[in-house]
């Protein structure tokens, strides 16, 4: 395996792990709130989170540039204040992967949380637990398998992210070139052997992830 492919593999794993961590951090509370609370704008939040699942990844990527690019809504003030821009760094790859993977976790986890018997939460309230403690001690542990399955799917999605990453992070070898981008480049430049190796690697990894998610899903039933 060429050093370039090896660095792409390392980057992919790093980006996917960071993205999965971010997905867990943002997605689990979001899934709980969507499953258990009725609030104004709930449908809008739900739609916004799910949208990357439906939109072409390049469109999602474009929106990310509009928000985070050097002249973006958030990107411009950040650049003026610090001289730093997220675009075309590995952070950008991680953020793109997070946004693309988030709906997979939120959908799976909120379905799992919604299926937890509310009487159990009420029982916890009468036994002195606050809503916050009840979520931590009762609701989330009981939705655990659904949440884990969602995280596995999110990791897989992050690993395979292409379009949005290309838009926001570019395709810079050794810097933002993840495995999917590396495969694309290898095919374009005729390095068939290198491409085949990476394709095989990603296929095996994805199959493993699918089996893991299936097991967790089955146990959640």
């Amino acid at each position, binding site marked *: 395996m060429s050093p370039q492919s090896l660095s792409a593999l390392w980057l992919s794993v790093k980006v996917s792990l960071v993205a999965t961590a971010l997905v867990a951090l943002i997605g689990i509370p979001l899934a709980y709130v969507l499953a258990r609370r009725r609030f104004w704008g709930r449908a809008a939040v739900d739609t916004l989170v799910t949208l990357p699942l439906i939109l072409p990844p390049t469109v999602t990527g474009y929106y990310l540039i509009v928000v985070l690019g050097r002249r973006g809504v958030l990107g411009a003030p950040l650049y003026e204040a610090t001289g730093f821009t997220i675009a075309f760094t590995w952070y950008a790859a991680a953020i793109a992967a997070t946004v693309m993977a988030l709906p997979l976790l939120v959908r799976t986890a909120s379905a799992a949380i919604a299926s937890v018997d509310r009487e159990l939460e009420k*029982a916890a*309230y*009468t*036994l*002195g*637990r606050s809503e916050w403690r009840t979520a931590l001690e009762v609701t989330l542990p009981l939705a655990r398998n659904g949440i884990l399955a969602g995280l596995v799917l999110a990791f897989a999605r992050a690993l395979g992210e292409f379009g949005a990453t290309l838009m926001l992070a570019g395709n810079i070898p050794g810097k933002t070139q993840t495995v999917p981008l590396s495969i694309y480049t290898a095919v374009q430049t005729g390095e068939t052997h290198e491409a085949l190796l990476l394709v095989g690697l990603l296929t095996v990894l994805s199959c493993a992830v699918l089996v893991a998610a299936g097991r967790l899903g089955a146990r959640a039933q």
Partner: protein
Amino acid sequence: MSHRLDVRLVKQLPGFTLDVEWTGGEGVAALFGPSGAGKTLTLQCLAGLLRPDAGRIVTDGRVLFDSDTATDLPPQKRRVGYVFQGYALFPHLSVADNVAFGLRDRPRAEARRRTAEVIARMGLEGLEDRSPREISGGQRQRVALGRALAPDPALLLLDEPLSALDAPLRSSLRDELKQILSDWGTTAVLVTHDFTEAYRLGDRIVVYEDGHVIQAAPRAELLWQPASERVAGIVGIRNVLHGTVLKATADRIQFRWREQVLEAVNSPTRSYLPAPESSLAFFIRPEYVRLIRKDRGTPDPGHHMNLMSGRVVGEADFGTTWTLYFKLDTPGRPAQGDYDLEVEVPRLVYEILEISRDRQWQLSIHRGSIHVLPSA
């Protein structure tokens, strides 16, 4: 220490209004009534899981809810133990951890001691590490009770505690539950749609119908002095009949029913004097109708009150007793469809009198066994 529970609640829901007021306390108050009458809704209001629109809930001088002073303690602060209909045991925790769940605020050693004590009192030793899935229905009920009682609640709420069990288990667990409730002595409110259960477990019965309380009374009073024909119907009293008043005095009421004159004792606690010719509702318990033996000579009207004669037109075998459906010999339409009176006799009597062969009988009802119902 004497206990007291005052409840007044108004809660408007789409298509249903709960508007109730009753008093409980010492022992168990059983909320009894058909499904959808608002009993569980009441429990949820008591526990603080549902906020009433208006009202007041006070237990032993502690105000849990008062719409006038905007008091509304959250469920965490009410010191209320709740036994849910399906028990709602935490499936991811062991029996011991379920029981210990409400003891979080206590020092660890004390929580452990209390958990062990409750497990022993509930007869759950040896099951501490089992999952709720691995124990029987009766054991689950005891875990749910133990979990609710462990933090020493001021009020224990039980929602249809026996409905999750199979029929054969129900009656034995009903007695076990009664024992536990009287041993712990916690003021309790129990919801049930089964009158036998309400009667066995409740010291006081609160009858619910369609979001309202139609009677709240000590259990015996409910059975012998239902406040209205509706209560009589809901608690399953048989032979609720209608007559026409002839004469009423402070201790007797004479009335006409099915072309005969009957005499009843006026209710000692709420004797009332309906005008002659007014309509009167009354009931006769099937087990208090006497069949007159034919081998003891002609009946003596001085001894055998309210004498009538009739024919068995239907019967049902309940194992230890037989229910006979009598149609009186007097002309006119029978009072209850195709019969006038339901009469219950012990199996032994049925056999000795050879009722299966002999269908024509004279009946007598003591005047004290005819219960006059207040007019609605």
